């Protein structure tokens, strides 16, 4: 009976993820994106379209701001009013940051977006009723809503195009929210394989579509719990802590840190699972 269960496990139910001890058991999927390597070529974005059955909305809907790119490459110029961008542009691959304390999760009225055991910010399409509160509360605005019923919209997946759709990924219908899943279908497959072999997924065994495509290997993805994984090493070396209690310790020291790792909107304390590495520019030229 629910009440007795509640009383028995009270302390467990009061455990606050992720700031309390041991937020993750076996897996914590995380990413590191090196902005110095990223060339802004868009390969990741297209790969995402291919892997995750993203609809191509066409010019008119793109104009209306209804595009569905889970992975978007943002391009920034220097703001200092220089005549020419003589240090190039800055590219920012922006995808769902899979926050550990995700603002989107708490506000969903039906619990369609939740936190999974391996640290993903899951989105349950079947459960979503389309209140769009999650998107409203997302600081990064990386959630994308199905404003139309794309599967039945002209020239989204006409004729043979449907055969390209990835059977591992749902094709979302009208009125549900969707977003980057860290290619959860690949993660699940890898985990199942590992489980049948009675081991954990080892580093590099599973890649996200964007990571796999990236020609400059700017994207590192893996399990943060496993200290030897590439991503864990990167985070460790950059001294970026997943659930930094208040701010990252390294930013406290005076003069700031000379490491490149940072997370966007650290101050909002959503604890993103994506670490970015600052873009570097040569001072000698």
């Amino acid at each position, binding site marked *: 009976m629910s009440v007795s269960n509640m009383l028995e496990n009270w302390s467990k139910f009061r455990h606050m993820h992720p700031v309390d001890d041991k937020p993750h058991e076996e897996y914590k999927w995380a990413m590191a994106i090196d902005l110095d390597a990223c060339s802004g070529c868009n390969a990741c974005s297209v790969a995402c379209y291919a892997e995750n059955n993203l609809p191509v909305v066409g010019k008119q*809907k793109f104009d*209306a*701001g*209804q*595009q569905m790119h889970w992975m978007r490459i*943002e391009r920034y110029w220097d703001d200092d009013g220089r005549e020419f961008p003589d240090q190039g542009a800055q590219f*920012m691959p*922006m995808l769902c940051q899979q926050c550990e304390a995700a*603002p989107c999760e*708490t*506000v*969903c*009225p*039906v*619990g369609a977006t939740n936190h999974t055991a391996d640290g993903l910010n899951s989105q349950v399409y079947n*459960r*979503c*009723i*389309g*209140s*769009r*509160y999650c*998107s*409203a*509360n997302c*600081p*990064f*605005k990386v*959630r*994308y*809503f*199905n*404003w*139309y*019923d794309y599967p039945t919209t002209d020239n989204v997946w006409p004729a043979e195009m449907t055969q390209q759709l990835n059977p591992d990924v749902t094709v979302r219908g*009208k*009125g*549900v*929210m969707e977003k980057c899943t860290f290619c959860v279908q690949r993660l699940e497959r890898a985990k199942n394989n590992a489980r049948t072999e009675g081991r954990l997924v080892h580093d590099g065994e599973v890649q996200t579509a964007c990571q796999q495509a990236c020609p400059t290997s700017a994207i590192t993805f893996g399990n943060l719990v496993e200290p030897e994984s590439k991503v864990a090493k990167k985070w460790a070396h950059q001294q970026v802590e997943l659930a930094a209690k208040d701010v990252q310790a390294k930013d406290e020291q005076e003069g700031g840190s000379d490491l490149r790792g940072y997370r966007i*909107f650290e101050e*909002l304390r*959503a604890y993103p699972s994506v670490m970015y590495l600052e873009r570097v520019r040569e001072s000698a030229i």
Partner: protein
Amino acid sequence: MEKDIRESIEWAKINGDVLKSLESPRPLFWVILVIALSMFGVGLGCEIYQYQIGMGVANLNNPQVWGLYIATFIFWIGMSHSGTLLSAILHLMHADWRKPIYRFAEAMTTFSLMTAGLFVMVHLGRLWQFYYAIPYPSERWVWPNFQSPLLWDAMAIFTYLSSSVIFLFIGMIPDLAICRDHLHPGWRKSLYTVLSLGWEGTDRQWRNFRMTYLTVACFLIPLAVSVHSIVASDFAMSQQPGWHVTSFPPYFVAGALYSGCAAIITLFVILRYVFKFEEYMTLPILKKIVRLTFAIAMVWTYLNAVEFASVWYSHDEASKAVLIQKATGIYAPFWWMMNFCGSVVPFVMMIKRLQTNIPVMFAVSLLLNLGMWLERWMIVSPTFSHGYYPYLWDNNQWPTLVQWGIVFGSFGWFTLLFMGFCKLFPSVSMYEVKEMVYHRSLALKHTERNLAVNATELAEKGAH
């Protein structure tokens, strides 16, 4: 100063007048009804279209995921608070002038809540799945997310709606009995017979009636406050700049009472004419509401200022940017309009002559509500167009006719329900007007007697 109501009104006349309103209103009534119906038609059409094609036709987008629907939803919720104010708060304060007008105010509460409820539905991307938000037991132990302010909303609105309906009904039982007794046989009579639950005005009934009415009133006041605080927390609980403001709940409540009172003035004027209630909805009463409204307007203005100030003097750059955006960006005209309607227009109500000038007050009340609607819009949209993430700042998103159509239609829907109610049920509480008249005449006799006594005493003194 003239009287709120004539003590010498025959009780029979009270019955007569009110009952007449159920049968022969002025022709304008039918005009209003037809207009309302067609407005509702428009809204319904838009909704059907949107339901078929998808929310995209409302031209919402990322980041502008919410639009006029939510804004108007808050507007209607706010509207509902006046009824409670009049029937509950003023009841506890024994302000008997509320008696002739509280019934329609309560009706307004009920129906604007129903309208607000509609907007929750209209807003959903998958309307057909709305029941996922209802906490019903399922074999999969799937429950809604009780942490979501939206769910609190649903809960609060349900509580508020059902409580006000009950409150409205209970308060109406004696009047229903009157209708039962004095209407010619017909479907109406049998309806009232059922609804009046066999009320006969026995002392026992009256005793419990009083207790109940009082208790429910006591519940309704905190409820009303909580409802709009919760609506406020839809925003205040979020992380978005311009929403994450501590003073939102009181701000919203004030706004709610404000628009509610304004709406009461509007409907006061309409009903007074349409149902020939000049005897009961008297100018002095109008004057009292106007003054009340003005007071609340000032409270709202203050809280408005508090919000701006707290944002301005905080070091939250993002929120500040949103505020500046409101005052200077594309929303500026509406934002200034809101401040004008909300904080400047009410000063018209300070001018004594105009307080009882029906056309002016009518116009003013409409302006106030325009202002309050804009306020809600200005809370919702600018934050989206200028959130945390600059790459997603969006200045050319604009609501389509579908959105406007549904908002427009909601007013039709409300009017339809409201006017329908007034035609079907006594929109002036007969028994309470009687009480009002009764107690006032007693008081009057009393004072007269005292005067008389004093006079004789003086005379005697003089004789000596």
